């Protein structure tokens, strides 16, 4: 299977090298098809085998001051928790972040690849790439690998000439622009808290707290990190242990005992 090394080429054609003299378009990467009677069914099975359960909660939202990005930090292999300290917010470049949900390797590799492309765009065009452009590049790459078992559910968050930008991109090739997203198995819980507490006019602290609470409610007893993207790039705000957050939100109040049991001497 041909890997996408187009980021390393000069005038980058999007889907790999081709004879540029003969056309403008290049073909998607291809590989030999297995001989089977029901290829579609086979493809579905293959995807199910490869697709790990996206045991993650990530969220991002745009508000008055910029974009807030938060994610938990658990990595699971089936039922086994392999790490409590995975970085699920990937720094593509100083003013753009990507979140990781789905296959960890897929997300990490393709975000780094996207970072290369963004940097090359900057060098060639003497201006930063827009969040729209970066998310489109990633979406096009993922679309060209559609059906080959990539598992990526990511949000591209950043600040460009037009202000804050947030896009959801997944390995099915989908790409959505929005103000609030949450991705991962914990996302329904996160959405509940996020949608309830969201206001466009929040301060950075309020937004960070909202993000923290949403992640906490989705992933009890887990770690969470929160990043803030503003006009000058992103800044890591906190990396909390959600276990501690639990006791912060619900502090243990010693309850008054109704009746004290006293040891009766003798009897």
């Amino acid at each position: 299977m041909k890997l996408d090394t187009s980021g390393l080429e000069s005038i980058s054609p999007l889907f790999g090298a081709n004879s540029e003299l003969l056309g403008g378009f290049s073909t998607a990467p291809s590989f030999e098809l297995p001989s089977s009677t029901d290829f579609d069914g086979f493809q579905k099975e293959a995807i199910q085998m490869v697709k790990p359960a996206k045991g993650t909660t990530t969220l991002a939202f745009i508000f008055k001051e910029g974009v807030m990005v938060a994610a938990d930090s658990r990595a699971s292999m089936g039922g086994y928790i392999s790490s409590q300290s995975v970085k699920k917010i990937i720094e593509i470049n100083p003013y753009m972040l990507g979140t990781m949900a789905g296959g960890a390797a897929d997300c990490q590799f393709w975000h780094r690849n996207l970072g290369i492309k963004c940097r090359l765009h900057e060098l060639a065009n003497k201006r930063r790439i827009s969040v729209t452009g970066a998310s489109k590049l990633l979406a096009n790459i993922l679309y060209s690998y559609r059906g080959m078992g990539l598992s990526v559910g990511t949000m591209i968050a950043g600040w460009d000439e037009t202000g804050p930008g947030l896009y959801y991109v997944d390995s099915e090739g989908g790409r959505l622009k929005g103000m609030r997203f949450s991705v991962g198995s914990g996302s329904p819980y996160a959405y509940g808290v996020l949608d309830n507490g969201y206001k466009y006019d929040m301060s950075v602290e309020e937004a960070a707290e909202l993000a923290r609470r949403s992640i906490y409610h989705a992933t009890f007893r887990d770690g969470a990190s929160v990043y803030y993207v503003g006009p000058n790039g992103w800044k890591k705000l906190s990396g909390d242990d959600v276990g501690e957050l639990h006791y912060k939100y619900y502090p243990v109040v010693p309850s008054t005992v109704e009746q004290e049991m006293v040891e009766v001497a003798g009897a």
Partner: protein
Amino acid sequence: MARYDRAITVFSPDGHLFQVEYALEAVRKGNAAVGVRGTDTVVLGVEKKSTAKLQDSRMVRKIVNLDDHIALACAGLKADARVLINRARIECQSHRLTVEDPVTVEYITRYIAGLQQKYTQSGGVRPFGLSTLIVGFDPYTGVPSLYQTDPSGTFSAWKANATGRNSNSMREFLEKNYKETFGQETVKLAIRALLEVVESGGKNIEIAVMTKEHGLRQLDEADIDVIVAEIEAEKAAAEAAKKAPSRET
């Protein structure tokens, strides 16, 4: 296939690429083209060779647009121009599709120049026999630009430039008379440069004006004639003013 791997453009012992230089000769034989950049307007002008009587002159458009905000004029082999323009137009749309942004003038110029360069370093092909003048506005900042490319694949930005037949005279005129202009003055400057080497009259000149708001607008013969008349009047007035003081002494 091996026979077509041989490059046609190879170095000479003293470091020349003769095919590229011959291509430049072809450009020098092409019709005159001029481009002028103003503060809010960019103008392209091309010499229109008289068409045959039966030819439908409306179809012959020498100044084309590559996108809503970019236009191109060229001098040299017109058939090569068609191929290059088509590729550039595709690239403009492809760029819009992949990064959701219109191209900048610099980007598409770099693309066209890159294409021209590729054909000087590939097997079995000859270079494109044309130089292009590319004008347009940056989609975000609105800054106007004028670029020129040539068969060797080099490109650079210009305030005003000319290519094709008698381009040296036109460039000399522009160097002497260029100043920052806007609106109609830019158009006049371009026409004056072209009139240095072309017969006067609307039917020998094709002018296209591009502004940020209105995009590319081709002037019709009548408009051009009006401006030409204005220019002639100004020239006559200047001549008279020169003669007048000497008469007084």
